[in-house]
Every structure is written in structure tokens, then in C-alpha cells.
């Protein structure tokens, strides 16, 4: 029988913790949320010797156990609560060789919690190049624990680490720094009041300043914060925390003097050279802009080949199903509802994969922090900081992780504003809509030989989303009466060559969750739509055949043309037809007919549903083997005549989708992150109104 132990990976950001996690667990990992809160939780399984299985938890990166953001407080919560399912049997603190001093701060704190702790020193392959030598044996003695040198990138030392984890029972648990020296009298009183508790644990509970919402905490501790022990003023506590940090560094400095030697003669590193260019006041921005441009061209150009192929594939699937299965409601549900609906989502896999590929490249390489640095001054003017740029950029993939990425913003006002404006950035769910409409109304031409007009339009839409986000941030900053206390401290990590395995795992993981998540909604909506479109009440629906035949009797139509007229007459008088007609007055001024109206309404659940809905409606109408794009091109405007998708109505639709808050999942996340319905309601109403009036203005001016 195999036994299972809990292993927690803890460490500063940028120490290669994720690479190590990927090495240990490979594709045996899953991403979820901590119970009750939406901080991402990565878990995986690693097989060890002797039938032992390690359940590995990758905790968010943190510099210390003093929390200033919710991500960090997750780490503290996990380490404090011995009854938690996640409480580690062994903690693995990941540090990197070049920032050992700073990384050891966190290590000494965890050691004080008397949890068996292994110190992992990553990036050992750089030691020679940087002329660093380390006395591991001496270190193990001074730190009271096992120290393992690894290189996650070069796959070195991983087996040693696994061995160390397997023998976790031999690890010593006594601390290496005694925090109580900072105020012996106070700590003694704590010890006497709670003799069965660890004094450092008590200290952590007292000093934690978590104001991001209700976080479960061991009941015993609740009275600590409010009760008789809260005799120190906040000022005093802060001073003590400063003192604690100094004491820990004294210990670490003493230790490193004994065990570490660095030959300082090594040449100027690559980092400063690269930074001089990438952070330059002109080149820096230009490079950032070029990188963005490349990403959008790639999404538009390169992915068009697999997309065309998928498009054709689903069209023929649908036709084959319709002709080979016996005719009946079930067949038509599959051929006209499910397959086109699925096709509507599968087709965007290439683009979404590309997007996540680039985003993970930027993050892995360390460039994302440079973007934060470049943008801080600009963002400050809008009431945000450089740190809001990461959510805004990840918003181009999906607003949900982006809202979650605001968790490392310390200031509540800044964080709230970022959450509220993030859905304006162009997420991947808008891509399907943008792409199909751009293809319909913007000519496929080159501009100045380099830029493709369609690609450029796409880029403009991204800029528009970003502009809308920072403009509304500026407004919110003026309007929201919340006090702020913000500071900005950010580490600039070393540049790294992105690791193929990490990038691949991110792309697979994120694309999969996007497709499965969106797929479920789209499937459900496709079926509902098919039912609504295939059934109706009354004379006009049931006798459509005769009515239409009579109406066109004199015109000598071919059988195919007649069938199409009948189908569209049926659709018009189906349930969905009535719904569409009912909302038509509201959407007509924007340049849409009732079919687009239905697509818009159904896509309030999720934007990508738009294409699927039109696919379903048009398939119901005509079962010919044609792709959606061709069908949309053929649509005529019932009132004005001419094609339905003109430049004016196309731009109007693009603007509507650029601004409207059409994503139930994001609203749900915002509700959780802001602890109530107030902010998501405000967000939904404001964005929908902006979208409506922008689309209205565009159509009325352009038509």
C-alpha cells in the first residue's frame, strides 16, 4: 500500500519554484482554488521510493511570512493551521544561489514554525560562472537541516531532493533564529498565556495585517488579535517587525560569511546591459510596442491556417452527420445545434494557444517586470501602479486570471480599480467575434507592404480596450471615496531563457481550461438555441411550407431557393424568432437585425457564444455545407437592403463587444474578490451602457 505525504513548495518569487514543481510533477498537476477564496492553487503528485507518494503543493511566491497581500497570507494560513488538509509534512524552501541571502530570511521564519524544512538551492549551474563556492556541510549544521543543490532547468539534483523528501522524518525541527530576543518580556508573556502553542506562531497571528477579506483562521487565535494581548500599538508592532528582520539578517550575514565565497571579479552581467536597452526611455517603449505588434500579427496571421482547416472540418462533419444519420429531431440537434456550436469554440484553439504561449514567454523570461517598471509612472497618473499592468496584460488572455492577478497589489483602492477596469482589456473570448467581423468588413490588404490592414484593426481594438481601461481607472480614481496608502516595491528578476517545458505546460493547462470552461456554456446554449429555433407556435410556424409556397408561386423559384425561404420563414416564427423580434427595436439603431440581437443577448453569458449562436441560427436556416463566415457574408439587411454586415454595422458590433461586460464567470469572480454584488453590478451596468452608446454613435455616424 502506498503512503502519501504533503509537501509544500515555498519560496521567493523568481526562484524557479514553478520549474521545480513542473520537474517533480510533470503533467500530473491540477490547478484549483483555495477553499472560499480565488487564489490559484497548484497541486501535483510525485512518486518517491519505497511506495511513498508526495502530494506537492506549489504555494504563491512570498518574500516573508509578513503578509501584505492575500497571496502571501495563503502561505501563512497553510503553515499555521495544523488541522488543514494541506498542512505540510515537510516544507521545501526554494532559493536561488544568487539571492541566497534574501531567500534565507523566509527560510529562517519557516524554521521557527518547527516544521521539517528542506532548503533547496536552485540554479546551481550558475555557480561556476559566477565564481560562487558554498560549504554545504557547514550550512546544514548551522541551519539544522538538509540542504540540497539543484538546477531545475538542467534537471540536476532532483533525485537528491526526492531522497531528502523520502527521509523527511530524519529532519530536525528546532529553529535557527530565536525571534523572541526582539522583546523578551513580551514574548515570555505570550508563552505563559498559551503554553501549548508555538510562540512564533502566536507572534505571526498578532502581526498579520490581512485586510483583503475574511480568511479562515484557527479559532484559538481569534481572541489573540482582539483580546488582552493586543496591548502593543500598531506602531510598536511594526517597529518590532523591523527589528525581527534585522535580527534575522544578522544571523544570515554571519552564516554566509562562513559558508559562501564569491569572487567579485566577474564581468558586468547580462542583466544590466539588457536593462539599459529594454528600459530605455525611447527604445524601451518601442520594443514593448513591437513585441505587442508581433503577438497580434501572429495571432492573426499564423493561426489562420489551422483555423481554416478546423472550420472546413466542422462544416463537413455537420453535413456528413445530417446525411448519414436517419432524419429526425435528434440528428438535426446534433448536426445543427451541437456540431456547429462546438466548432465555434474549437476553431479558436490555435489563437488562444498562441496568446498564452506569448504571455508565458514574457513572464518566464523576466520581461514582464520590466513592463511594470516602464509603465509605473504612466499608470500612477490614472490611480494605478505598474503592478496593475500585469493584470491588464493577462487580461488579454482572460479576465478571470487577470482579476486574480490583482492579489499582489497591496493597496485596496488600487486593487479595486484594477479589478473593475480589467474586463475592458481584450480577452481571448472577444477574439472569435473580432476575427469574424473584421474578416467580413475590413479588406484583406497590405498597408505600406508590412502591415496587414486586418491585423492592424485587431491591434487598434486591443489598444482601444486598454485605453478604455485606463481612462475608466482615472475616472474611478477621482470618484471613489476610498483612502489609499500605496507604496511600490518590486523585484527585478534576472533574465532567463524561457524553459520549453514550463511554457508548454502553461499553454496546455490554460487552453484546456478555457476550452472546457467555455465549451460547457456554449454547448448548453447551443442546445437551448436549437430547441428555441426549431419549435414554434401557431399557424405561421406549422404551415410555413404552404404559406411560403403560395407566396412565391408566381416567381418560379428553384427547389433549393424555395427550401431556404421556407426555413427562414420558420425561423422567423419560431420561439427564438419572437424573442429576436421583441428585442429588435433596441438593437436596430445599432445596425443589427433580430438574428444578431439574439446572438448578442445569448452572449451576455460569454462573448464567444456570439459566433456559436449565429452558427446555430444559420445552420437551422440552411443545412448546406458552408462555413459561418460565408453565410454571414450572404446575409442581407431586411430593411435597408444590401449586405447586413457593412462597414458601419461591423464597426458598431466591434465597439459593442469591445466595451460590454459579457462574461458571467468574470462577474462571479469579481463578486468573490470584492465580497458582494455591489461592484459586479456597477461594473455590469456601466460597461453595458458604454457599449450601447458607443455602438449607437458609431453606426449612426458611419452609415
Amino acid at each position, binding site marked *: 500500500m502506498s503512503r502519501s505525504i504533503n509537501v509544500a513548495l515555498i519560496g521567493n518569487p523568481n526562484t524557479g519554484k514553478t520549474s521545480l514543481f513542473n520537474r517533480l510533477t510533470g503533467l500530473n498537476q491540477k490547478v484549483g482554488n483555495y477553499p472560499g477564496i480565488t487564489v490559484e492553487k497548484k497541486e501535483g503528485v510525485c512518486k518517491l521510493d519505497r511506495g511513498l507518494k508526495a502530494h506537492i503543493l506549489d504555494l504563491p511566491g512570498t518574500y516573508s511570512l*509578513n503578509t501584505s497581500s492575500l497571496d502571501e497570507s495563503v502561505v501563512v494560513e497553510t503553515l499555521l493551521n495544523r488541522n488543514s488538509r494541506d498542512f505540510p509534512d515537510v516544507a521545501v524552501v526554494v532559493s536561488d544561489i544568487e539571492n541566497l541571502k534574501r531567500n534565507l530570511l523566509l527560510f529562517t521564519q519557516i524554521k521557527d514554525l518547527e516544521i521539517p524544512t528542506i532548503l533547496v538551492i536552485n540554479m546551481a549551474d550558475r555557480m561556476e560562472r559566477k565564481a560562487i563556492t558554498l560549504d554545504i556541510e557547514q550550512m546544514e549544521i548551522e541551519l539544522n537541516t538538509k540542504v540540497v543543490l539543484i538546477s531545475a532547468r538542467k534537471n540536476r539534483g532532483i533525485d537528491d531532493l526526492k531522497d531528502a523528501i523520502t527521509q523527511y522524518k530524519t529532519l530536525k525541527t528546532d529553529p535557527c533564529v530565536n525571534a523572541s530576543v526582539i522583546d523578551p518580556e513580551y514574548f515570555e508573556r505570550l508563552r505563559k498565556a498559551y503554553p501549548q502553542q508555538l510562540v512564533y506562531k502566536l507572534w505571526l497571528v498578532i502581526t498579520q495585517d490581512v485586510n483583503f477579506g475574511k480568511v479562515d483562521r484557527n479559532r484559538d487565535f481569534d481572541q489573540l488579535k482582539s483580546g488582552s494581548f493586543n496591548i502593543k500599538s500598531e506602531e510598536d508592532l511594526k517597529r518590532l517587525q523591523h527589528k525581527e528582520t534585522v535580527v534575522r539578517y544578522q544571523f544570515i550575514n554571519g552564516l554566509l560569511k562562513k559558508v559562501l565565497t564569491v569572487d567579485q571579479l566577474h564581468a558586468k552581467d547580462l542583466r544590466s546591459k539588457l536593462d539599459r536597452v529594454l528600459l530605455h526611455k525611447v527604445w524601451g517603449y518601442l520594443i514593448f510596442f513591437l513585441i505587442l505588434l508581433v503577438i497580434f500579427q501572429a495571432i492573426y496571421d499564423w493561426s489562420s491556417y489551422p483555423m481554416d482547416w478546423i472550420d472546413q472540418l466542422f462544416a463537413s462533419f455537420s453535413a456528413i452527420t445530417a446525411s448519414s444519420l436517419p432524419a429526425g429531431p435528434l440528428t438535426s440537434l446534433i448536426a445543427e445545434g451541437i456540431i456547429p456550436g462546438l466548432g465555434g469554440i474549437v476553431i479558436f484553439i490555435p489563437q488562444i494557444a498562441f496568446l498564452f504561449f506569448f504571455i508565458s514567454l514574457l513572464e518566464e523570461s523576466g520581461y514582464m517586470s520590466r513592463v511594470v517598471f516602464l509603465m509605473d509612472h504612466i499608470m500612477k497618473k490614472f490611480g494605478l501602479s505598474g503592478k496593475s499592468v500585469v493584470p491588464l496584460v493577462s487580461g488579454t488572455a482572460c479576465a478571470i486570471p487577470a482579476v486574480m492577478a490583482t492579489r499582489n497589489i497591496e493597496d485596496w483602492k488600487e486593487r479595486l480599480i484594477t479589478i473593475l477596469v480589467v474586463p475592458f482589456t481584450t480577452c481571448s473570448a472577444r477574439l472569435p467575434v473580432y476575427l469574424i467581423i473584421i474578416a467580413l468588413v475590413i479588406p484583406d490588404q497590405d498597408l505600406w507592404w508590412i502591415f496587414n490592414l486586418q491585423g492592424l484593426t485587431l491591434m487598434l481594438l486591443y489598444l482601444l480596450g486598454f485605453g478604455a481601461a485606463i481612462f475608466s481607472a482615472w475616472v474611478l480614481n477621482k470618484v471613489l471615496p476610498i483612502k489609499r496608502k500605496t507604496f511600490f516595491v518590486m*523585484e527585478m528578476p534576472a533574465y532567463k531563457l524561457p524553459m520549453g517545458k514550463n511554457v508548454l505546460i502553461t499553454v496546455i493547462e490554460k487552453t484546456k481550461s478555457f476550452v472546457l470552461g467555455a465549451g460547457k456554456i456554449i454547448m448548453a446554449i447551443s442546445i437551448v438555441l436549437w430547441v428555441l429555433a426549431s419549435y414554434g407556435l401557431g399557424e405561421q410556424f406549422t404551415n410555413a411550407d404552404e404559406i411560403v409556397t403560395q407566396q412565391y408561386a408566381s416567381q418560379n423559384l428553384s427547389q433549393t431557393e424555395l427550401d431556404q425561404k421556407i426555413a427562414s420563414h420558420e425561423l422567423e416564427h419560431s420561439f427564438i424568432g419572437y424573442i429576436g423580434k421583441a428585442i429588435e427595436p433596441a438593437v436596430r439603431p445599432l445596425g443589427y437585425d433580430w438574428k444578431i440581437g439574439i446572438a448578442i443577448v445569448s452572449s451576455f453569458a460569454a462573448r464567444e457564444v456570439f459566433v456559436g449562436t449565429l452558427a446555430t441560427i444559420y445552420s437551422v436556416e440552411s443545412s448546406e455545407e458552408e462555413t459561418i463566415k460565408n453565410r454571414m457574408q450572404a446575409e442581407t439587411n431586411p430593411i435597408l437592403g444590401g449586405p447586413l454586415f457593412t462597414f458601419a454595422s461591423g464597426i458598431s458590433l466591434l465597439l459593442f463587444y469591445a466595451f460590454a461586460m459579457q462574461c458571467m464567470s468574470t462577474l462571479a469572480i469579481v463578486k468573490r474578490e470584492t465580497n458582494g454584488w455591489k461592484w459586479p453590478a456597477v461594473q455590469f451596468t456601466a460597461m453595458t451602457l458604454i457599449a450601447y452608446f458607443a455602438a449607437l454613435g458609431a453606426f449612426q455616424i458611419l452609415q
Partner: protein
Amino acid sequence: MEKTIAHLKRGEIAIIKNFKETDVPLKLLEMGCLPGNLVTMMQSAPFQDPIYLNINGTHLAIRRETAAKINVDPYV
């Protein structure tokens, strides 16, 4: 007037002396911004803010308003 990190020129090295105010973020201390440690001004962002420092081997970015709260001594 005492010299602070905000006064450093690009490439200049100094020794951190003390903090002008008590509300210097704890996070800075944890990153190694402690009295006695060396600080190098690496670069400022476009528009002079934020600034990019090497403190005790850690590369970090802070805003000028925070940097102005940290007194330094010249490094010789």
C-alpha cells in the same frame, strides 16, 4: 539637507544609513534594504520615476517618494 537614495546619480554607490520616517515598508527591509548595506542606483525609468536599484545584490524598483525617506552615506 541629508542625502537620500533619491539623490543618487546613475551608477553611484552609497551606504544605507537610516530611515527618515518610520513608515518605510517592511517589505523593503525584507528585500535587504537595511542600514549598513550598499545601494547602487542602476537606472531611472522614463520620466525619472520609478527608480531601479541594486540593494545588497537584490535588484528592485521603488518610487522616488519612498527613496527620499532613506538616508545614505557616501561609499568610499
